């Protein structure tokens, strides 16, 4: 804040003269819209390079995902819909890792009762909204 105040009046601190090289700043702010040209180029490129570097095509990862599901399901009940399998790079070591997030299902009856209750609540909330939308259209 102090530095920015100085800057506002055309003054710079020594420190700032060294770090204010804008193209070298690598933090697109959290409030920066994620569909900016800069961040989408950055994110798309990371993904492309991970496939390039591992020489894994996206469809190979899909196949691997399916096989993993089959194997793991033999031992534990998992939520097949919400499995995430991604290649990620550690920015510091540049080591590529295969990251899997595999949600494990709780005992079926517990999950189902919770789910049912949630679904009921949702449908009750949505109903009036939907009918309203319809009536306004007509």
């Amino acid at each position, binding site marked *: *804040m102090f530095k*920015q*105040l100085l*800057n*506002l009046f055309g003054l710079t601190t020594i420190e700032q*003269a*060294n770090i*204010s*090289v*804008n*193209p*070298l*700043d*690598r933090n*697109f*702010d959290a409030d*920066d*819209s994620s569909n*900016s*040209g*800069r*961040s989408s*180029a*950055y994110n*798309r*490129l*990371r993904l*492309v*390079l991970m496939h*390039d*570097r591992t020489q894994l095509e996206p469809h190979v990862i899909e196949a691997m995902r399916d096989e993993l599901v089959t194997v793991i399901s033999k031992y534990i009940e998992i939520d097949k819909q919400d499995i995430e399998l991604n290649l990620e790079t550690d*920015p510091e070591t*540049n080591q590529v890792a295969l990251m899997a997030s595999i949600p494990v299902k709780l005992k079926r009856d517990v999950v189902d009762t919770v789910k049912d209750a949630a679904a009921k609540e949702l449908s009750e909330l949505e109903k009036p909204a939907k009918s309203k939308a319809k009536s306004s259209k007509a």
Partner: protein
Amino acid sequence: MTVEKDLMDSTEKTPKKRSSKPKGRVIVVTSGKGGVGKTTTTANIGTGLARLGFKVVLVDTDIGLRNLDILMGLENRIVYNLIDVLEGRCRLQQALVKDKRLPNLTLLPAAQTRDKSALNEEHMVEICKQLREVADFVLLDCPAGIEQGFQTAIAAADEAIVVATPEMSSVRDADRVIGLLEAKNTIEDYRLVLNRVRPALVKMNDMMSTEDVLEILSIRLLGQIPEDKDIIISTNRGEPVVNIEESISGQAYRNVAKRIAGEDVPFLNLDEPDSWVDKLKALFKGSRKQA
């Protein structure tokens, strides 16, 4: 190979010192993707090093598509070329074209009427072995692509300069090249020259920043060169922009040359001065974040 020891002639002034002097460094300038500024970078870094007083030889290894001669403004002075040397039509010394201004800077041009198969890796190693005896720096301008022409150019190099622009396709190709350079254990070091940086676009979050590219490629930065109309103008005049004192891209290249020579030069601030509105915006943004 009849290149023999012709080049020894050029060091006749100090024949005794030569044996104690460390041999010159062979640096290949490469990018994978074409059109990102390899040849411009070679011409400017080479000229920049020569301006610092080093003996520099620029070698155009892009057989059949030579362009380094044009960027140096030497296209009318070429008599012999690299292939003529290899095939015994002239001595290496005869093929070296002297720069217009700097007596310690020479160009070894590529053959324009031949194809890449005329030059192989052993040829390259042999030529560079002789050039590094007489020069402090041998800069090799590599052809685009990662096929044989690239493999030939990197065969003799100790170091590499990877040139890229902050665009997805260029960075992706640079990543491939870096992988190939890493696999080559004769290459001791490589660094990135990021070309055509547009700070205004980075500021607007419309373009990847230098730091974004460095992080993605996990490579060290040798220099960032701003997009600059001076480069077009000077190229048309046959004069590397590094010779134009008041040019910002010229300054960036002069800094790169110093870094290669071992000097610790801070990276250029490419920012245009902030307008009042920008400063106000930044002020509000900053205070919001702290809150």
